[in-house]
């Protein structure tokens, strides 16, 4: 935090470092509350906007007392818009947290599900299902696309993790390897696309663009469940994960079992990255930028960084969901296309105004 406000100065005069620390902690909590408030507002707008526009008062009424609004409003808000809007939030949150912890344990600002090839692997798995109908696990035909995507994403994540554990492998090597995976899976994807029928090809292209329009409650519950399992596990390791950002030696000297924390974190991250990608397709920007936004706003103390990453990712994708249906009336653009367009200007302005606290 570059600026010091009056309350801080008063606190320092009275209490030394601990007063200032307490003041900064309060400020971070306030930021988290504001982000949560912005997310609620964004959700409400997402529910209100579409081909039929409602007022926020109507949306709030439909949420709090569904019997008080017309059947049409209730159906649109609850059955049509709600799954998409909530899916945007849980997918954004999951991808952002996955990216945050990848960046933490690999000590690399470029790490994210997208840049390490996990999204590309998932796309290849999905295309395999769409084009060849080959299941990677014996599952019902309706689930073959997400399950194939999930299996490939999991394989890619675990591959990255186990290579990163080899002696003498630096974090730079791991990122290079991830980029190599992106190219490999993209090539395999192109290969499948070349062989695909016209119908299958358009399905593959649509999938790889990333979309929330096929959101269903079961998909939301599964993603939310993974998120709700992951967050307490990360929270339990908050001090250790923060220490890892000081370097492996330093963390180990503080009593952190770096190897174990890395393994546990990467396994959870593999689920966090694979599940949303398998349901929503390739949504590239959130996993990379969500954590950077969180880092610039609250720093890297995981007690604040973790919730801030959740909120930043959720907010980013929720706003994107609104934008994706506001560009052309009646058209909902695939969210994967819009994410970067919405996020980049915001991200740039944040980096330029906050150079010292970016990575």
């Amino acid at each position, binding site marked *: *935090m570059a600026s010091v406000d009056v309350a801080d100065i008063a606190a320092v005069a009275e209490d*030394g*470092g*601990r007063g*200032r*620390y*307490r003041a*900064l*902690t309060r400020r971070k909590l306030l930021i988290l509350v504001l982000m949560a408030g912005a997310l609620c507002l964004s959700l409400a707008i997402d529910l209100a906007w579409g081909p039929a526009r409602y007022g926020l008062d109507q949306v709030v009424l439909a949420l709090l007392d569904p019997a008080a609004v017309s059947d049409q409003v209730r159906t649109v808000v609850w059955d049509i818009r709600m799954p998409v809007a909530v899916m945007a939030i849980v997918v954004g949150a999951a991808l952002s947290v996955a990216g945050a912890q990848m960046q933490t344990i690999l000590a690399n600002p470029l790490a994210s599900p997208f840049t390490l090839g996990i999204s590309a692997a998932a796309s290849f798995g999905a295309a395999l299902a769409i084009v060849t109908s080959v299941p990677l696990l014996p599952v019902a035909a309706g689930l073959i696309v997400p399950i194939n995507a999930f299996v490939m994403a999991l394989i890619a994540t675990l591959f990255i993790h186990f290579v990163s554990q080899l*002696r003498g492998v630096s974090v730079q090597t791991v990122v290079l390897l991830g980029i190599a995976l992106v190219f490999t899976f993209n090539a395999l994807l192109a290969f499948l696309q070349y062989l695909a029928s016209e119908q299958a090809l358009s399905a593959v292209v649509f999938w790889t663009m990333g979309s929330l329009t096929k959101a269903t409650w079961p998909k939301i519950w599964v993603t939310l469940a993974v998120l709700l399992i992951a967050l307490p596990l990360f*929270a339990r390791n*908050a*001090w*250790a994960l*923060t*220490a890892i*950002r*000081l*370097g492996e*030696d*330093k963390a*180990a*000297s*503080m*009593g*952190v079992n770096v190897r174990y924390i890395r393994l546990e974190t990467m396994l959870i991250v593999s689920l966090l990255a694979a599940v949303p990608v398998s349901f929503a397709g390739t949504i590239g920007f959130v996993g990379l930028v969500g954590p950077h936004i969180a*880092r*610039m706003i609250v*720093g*890297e*103390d995981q*007690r604040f960084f973790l919730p801030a990453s959740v909120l930043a990712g959720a907010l980013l994708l929720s706003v994107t969901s609104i934008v994706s249906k506001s560009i052309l009336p009646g058209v909902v653009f695939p969210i994967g296309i819009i994410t970067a367009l919405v996020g980049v200007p915001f991200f740039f302005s944040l980096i330029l105004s906050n150079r*010292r*606290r*970016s*990575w």
Partner: protein
Amino acid sequence: MVALQLDDVGAYYGKTLAVAGVSTPQFEAGETVAVIGPNAAGKSTLFKRVAGLLRGPGSVHVDSARGTKAISYMPQDTAANAVLTVYESILLARKQGQSWRVGHADLTLIDDVLEALGIAGIAFRDLGALSGGQRQLVSIAQTLVREPEILLMDEPTSALDLHRQVEVLSFMQAEARRKGMIVLIAIHDLNQALRFADKVLVIADGRMRACGSSAEVITVEMLREVYRIDARIEKCSRAYDHVIVDGKAA
């Protein structure tokens, strides 16, 4: 009161036995021990072994109610680019393995340590904005807030100016005596070792060469054999032994 003794201690670095056969007399509470030796002699490896971060033969006897948890190791300085303030980075060293709740006692201890090391003024600077010397002082603070009984400091003064070196080493010596800690300091400056250490442990090529009082260990012969220099040891104006280097040994 804490005590530390190494018995035929060795350390594996990968599959290589990088350090072997280190047996020391018992180090007592309040003692400052300088660990000296040429570059790549195995000082850091030995420290990591004693801290339990590397495996190896032999045994490390720690006489403390906290067992090996009484030991805190301060690695050599590495630049960290984490977006954390100095204060946060010291707090997290203090809170490792504990709950999220930060108590009054935690913060008071941090304030005291920052004050004692003269870095209270940079407490809310980002780690990335510190100089090498400031980073080293922060690193010392991170180790001290863990309230260790045995402290292993790997070249804690290598980036400090002379004034700060003397300040930090005399502070550590005083803290060791006041709190009954054992402080092992890996250091290249033999004159500082002579000035501040109660005992000196010499290590070269992964083997212990000598361990005892500084006057017994830092001798003209040892300097010729281990460091390959011709030198004299004379008293300075304050009657401390001082190494004066004449040149490389033939």
